[in-house]
């Protein structure tokens, strides 16, 4: 009963989610935000040079016993973060922080919604402050490969490396997809373009343009590899610990692969 309810929930959520296609998203706003994010991605590199000066200035100020106590630097300037983080072992009490203590002044509404990363992921050594002068500016957003493809330990790995398309930047899969932490392989037809859409937790979603083609291919390719068909659109892996769902909504076809713990 519970399994049935869980299945119904998964299918309902998936159907509702995949009914939202890229074409339904407000394009102008999306582009503006993407541009904004791409623009500010480049900013830290410029400000890193300034970061050195700021850090030196702070150190000098400490050296002559001068403490600036009321200065409120703009919270969005990366130079401040560079100073505070990199020199924190020397001057933690004098370097302004851009973390949660100061950020709420900038926008109260949004602040509760972004959590601080764990402290263990921060504070590189002070010797790493030198600016990457020779580093070229960040490349334009559209030319960057998806972050999901950069992960060193993805939930799933491919039997052959996914190939980025030169035309759309997506990472297309060639051959079967290995489902990590197991011995299962998801058969994928090479003739039907399929790429990684996203990965969350133990779930990987793939986009493909031909749902019927995938379904037909699976009908012939899955059973010999030990997959069992639970329903027209759902298959269980040979290990019994991974599942593949096929869903289609508003012309978009999604393959969801869920691996058990």
């Amino acid at each position: 009963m519970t399994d049935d309810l869980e299945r119904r929930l998964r299918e309902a959520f998936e159907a509702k989610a995949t009914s939202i296609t890229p074409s339904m998203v407000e394009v102008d706003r999306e582009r503006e935000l993407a541009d904004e994010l791409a623009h500010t991605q480049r900013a830290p590199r410029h400000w890193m040079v300034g970061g050195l000066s700021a850090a030196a200035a702070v150190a000098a100020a400490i050296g002559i016993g001068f403490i600036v106590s009321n200065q409120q630097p703009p919270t969005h300037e990366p130079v401040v973060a560079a100073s505070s983080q990199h020199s924190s072992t020397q001057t933690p009490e004098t370097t302004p922080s851009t973390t949660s203590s100061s950020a709420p002044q900038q926008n109260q509404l949004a602040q509760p919604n972004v959590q601080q990363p764990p402290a263990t992921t921060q504070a590189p050594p002070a010797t790493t402050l030198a600016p990457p002068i020779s580093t070229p500016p960040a490349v334009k957003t559209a030319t960057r490969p998806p972050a999901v493809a950069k992960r060193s330990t993805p939930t799933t790995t491919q039997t052959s490396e996914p190939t980025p398309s030169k035309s759309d930047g997506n990472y297309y899969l060639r051959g079967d997809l290995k489902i990590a932490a197991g011995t299962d392989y998801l058969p994928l037809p090479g003739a039907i373009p399929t790429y990684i859409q996203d990965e969350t937790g133990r779930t990987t979603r793939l986009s493909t343009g031909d749902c019927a083609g995938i379904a037909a291919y699976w009908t012939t390719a899955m059973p010999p590899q030990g997959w069992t068909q639970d329903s027209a659109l759902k298959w269980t892996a040979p290990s019994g610990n991974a599942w593949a769902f096929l869903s289609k909504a508003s012309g978009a076809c999604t393959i969801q692969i869920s691996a058990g713990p």
Partner: protein
Amino acid sequence: MAEASSVTEENVDLAALYETHHLSMVRLARLLVDDLATAEDVVQDAFLGMHRRRDGLRDPGAAVGYLRRAVVNQARSTLRRRRTVRAHLRVAEPDVGPPADAEVLLGEEHREVLAAVDELPTRQREVLVLRYWSELSEAEIADALGISRGTVKSQASRAMATLSNKLGGEAR
């Protein structure tokens, strides 16, 4: 010098994060709020929030988790504000019909399940969405919602019991 470069490289690339996860986050938000436009607002605010705090984001591997958490929190705030506004405007405002992007194309079975989920308390709905759509573990859900694993478990249990009562008799 080389280390500085690597530190910079390890900064979270928000543009790439946006490109890769924008749609899935809009879908997640849409499962939590009333309509697509609001879901887009929620995701935009979440990205802008990360943008403002980008200097504190040093772990690209954790960025998706931060983003998901921001979306869930923003969605909850939005619903809370909306409930407040609607409570005050109820007298003057006519009943609002389904949103323009209502699930008209969804099957009856899915609509029925989603309607039952919509009637759940916000927290329970969030737990179910993160569990059965995002496929997160209890620990990951607890982290995303800022609650204990025990609370996740109890909220999920209550939600499933409620749904079972509503839908169970109709289970095929």
